[in-house]
């Protein structure tokens, strides 16, 4: 079985599972309890926070553990807009955000905020100039994802951050859920105020997200309760999963360079293969020579292509018969029978937007796996060709 759906969720690392089991068995006490058991659990929580903070080159007090990427995105956007709503009512985001960002803004637009959804180019990238042009006196937040979860396009976060530097009032939120462990991230240098990450995208367990809140930025908490996480995120902390996540994040960030170089290689190989199958068309940019540098345009671990005229489920199921697991658009919305909003925003037309397939790699894959996938793609396309429906 070849699992090419790392963007949806990654297989947890074995050492992460072991950490989780051991901590769960031993440190079941509630970190808020006064007795020694609680004190020990509380220390594990703080050590996890220190590990995460060090891995990102920031200070410990700036990190909150949440239940996952969706909560981090919600808490950042709703929390900041609620806290600073008297400073302005205009928000800026893009047309290609994950639903946990996009739909949060949709909800805010029903609550008296004005939201600008910026377009992207054909490669799935928003322009920093467009962000600058959209700013008004009333703007309080800009939220742009680092790597798009469907096509893998990289957004110019550093450039947007530098531009926003002149606008003190505007908070900059970045959904980094697909970029952590894949691309370099410089929270301080890029002027990021709020940043979301998710553990199960980097070999950690489900149920743990990170929310970075730059020192000085305040959020209204989403939940009311017992004051855990400095009151920002009440609820008994999931100590075992948090410790395991800290390990997963640390390893993902420490080994990023070598791992992403490998994945860039795999991506290049698969992109070449798809280019040689005339029925398939690549979505997003191919590869560029700068891919290993900061100016790369596509993330190393995602390849998105369409088979125009073929329902993507057919391709997904035929690949699965051959032991290959892939996704249509993002896992969260793949059950809806609608064209991909991201591909539509890239201006690729309804037919291409309705037939997108996403392949996402991880560390367990090698060139042989990509070659196997390539062989099967050739076979499957040949087999399905008679059933194409051209509009």
């Amino acid at each position, binding site marked *: 079985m070849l699992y090419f759906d790392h963007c949806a969720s990654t297989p947890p690392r074995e*050492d992460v599972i072991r*950490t989780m089991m*051991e*901590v769960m068995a031993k*440190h079941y006490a509630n970190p808020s309890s*006064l007795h*020694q058991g609680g*004190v*020990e659990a509380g*220390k*594990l929580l*703080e*050590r*996890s926070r*220190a*590990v995460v903070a060090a891995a990102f080159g920031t200070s410990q*007090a700036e990190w909150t553990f949440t239940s996952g990427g969706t909560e981090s995105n919600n808490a950042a956007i709703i929390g900041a807009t609620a806290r600073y709503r008297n400073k302005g009512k205009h928000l800026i985001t893009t047309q290609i955000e994950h639903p946990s960002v996009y739909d949060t803004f949709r909800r805010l637009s029903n609550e008296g905020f004005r939201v600008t959804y910026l377009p992207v180019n054909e490669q799935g990238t928003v322009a920093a100039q467009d962000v600058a042009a959209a700013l008004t006196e009333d703007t309080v937040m800009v939220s742009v994802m680092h790597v798009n979860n469907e096509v893998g396009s990289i957004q110019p976060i550093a450039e947007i951050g530098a531009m926003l530097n002149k606008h003190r009032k505007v908070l900059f939120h970045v959904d980094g859920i697909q970029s952590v462990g894949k691309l370099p991230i410089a929270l301080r240098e890029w002027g990021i105020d709020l940043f979301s990450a998710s553990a199960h995208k980097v070999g950690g367990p489900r149920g743990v997200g990170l929310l970075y809140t730059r020192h000085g930025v305040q959020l209204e908490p989403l939940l009311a309760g017992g004051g855990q996480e400095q009151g920002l995120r009440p609820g008994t902390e999931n100590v075992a999963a948090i*410790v*395991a996540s*800290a*390990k997963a994040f*640390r390893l993902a960030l420490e080994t990023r360079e070598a791992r992403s170089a490998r994945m860039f290689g795999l991506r290049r190989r698969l992109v070449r293969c798809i280019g040689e199958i005339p029925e398939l068309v690549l979505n997003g940019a191919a590869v560029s020579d700068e891919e290993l540098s900061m100016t790369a345009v596509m993330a190393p671990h995602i390849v998105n292509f369409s088979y125009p005229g073929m329902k993507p489920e057919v391709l997904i199921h035929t690949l699965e018969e051959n032991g290959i697991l892939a996704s249509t658009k993002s896992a969260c919305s793949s059950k809806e029978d609608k064209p991909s909003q991201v591909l539509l925003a890239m201006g690729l037309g309804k037919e291409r937007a309705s037939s997108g397939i996403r392949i996402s790699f991880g560390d367990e894959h090698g060139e042989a796996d990509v070659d196997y996938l390539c062989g099967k793609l050739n076979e499957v396309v040949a087999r399905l060709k008679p059933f194409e429906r051209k509009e």
Partner: protein
Amino acid sequence: MKVDMIMVRFGEYTIKGRNRGHFEKRIVEQVRRMLRPFVALQITRAFGRIYITLNGESYELISAKLKHIFGIMSFSPVRKCASELETIRETALEVMAALPRKPSTFKVTMRRVDKSFPHDSQEMNHLVGGHVLRAMPDLKVNVKQPEVELRIEIQPEGTYVFSEVVPAAGGFPYGTNGKAVLLLSGGIDSPVAGYLAMRKGLELEAIHFHSFPFTSEQAKQKVITLAQMLAEMNGVPFKLHMVSFTEIQTSFTQCNQDHLIITLMRRAMLRIAERLAERSGAIGIVTGDSLGQVASQTLPSMNVIGRTVELPLLRPLITTDKNDIIRMAEQIGTYETSILPFEDCCTLFIPKSPSTNPNLNVVRKVESFVPRLDEMIEEAIAQTETLVITPGESPETAKAGKDDWF
């Protein structure tokens, strides 16, 4: 702006004639100690100054450290360029553009040490100043009171250009004003008092009184965390004496003189602190007292409490308002820890109406009726547990669990 060098200026002690050399030697030592992780640096001492050549090390990280070194008054990021008119002009513009806040007035101060440079200082003032004015039309020259001084030194090895002056901690270098003990409660005030005392060049050892099981393990951890922060400020190992105060404190509750409990406690603490100070060669006791803040910090209370010891009591916060103390605590980073809600022994057994005007004779009398007070004090001193907090060492939480879990 790429910074090539940092010029560091010293604090007030440079006016002290004969000791100047000694102070300067200590500050250079201290700068070397705090910047040890940056291996490529070259640190040279000049008259009243230190020059730090970065050799590619990060200015941001180094300036963050320099800001907190006691004995440094201010420093400036310096650009080095070739001694050519055009290059100097461009560098001057870069330096002006990199200022954190746009000034409205400036002046150029030129030093031409390299006399082979074709233009003299007067000419250079106009050549560079005029260039800056053309590029920054809102800027005006003000020779008497400029907001910013653009300084250019033409040396044989190249030209140094700088204008930004970053204020630093000030005060005296580490340990140049002797040694004292600090009463560290875990509240907001005492870490700030410790910071201010160290900024004045005092070497400190901290003393904490706990009343386990009336005070918790968390309260002890909190004090260790605060001591760790104080240790980081000077980058040298820091001693924390943990004194068990349970027996003494509980015996005071049996005197039927509830309104005097605080007075009695503070006197006993000072007696213990004085003995520990003498044992460590310290000749002063630093406290976080602030006049009138609580019952034990009224002038009559301090009079009665202070008379139990002979060592000088240093109270850096004595006339500082609480709001200002809080602001300082936030600046030095101790506030968040100080407000953690773990009770320390100073807030334990507090009577409803503690005396703000205790009578020294009454207090002495009550003390004389406390059974075994002197022995209990001896025992507390003998049983004191001393922790040596190493700077840079991971705090207690970093040792939680097993290393391979992380």
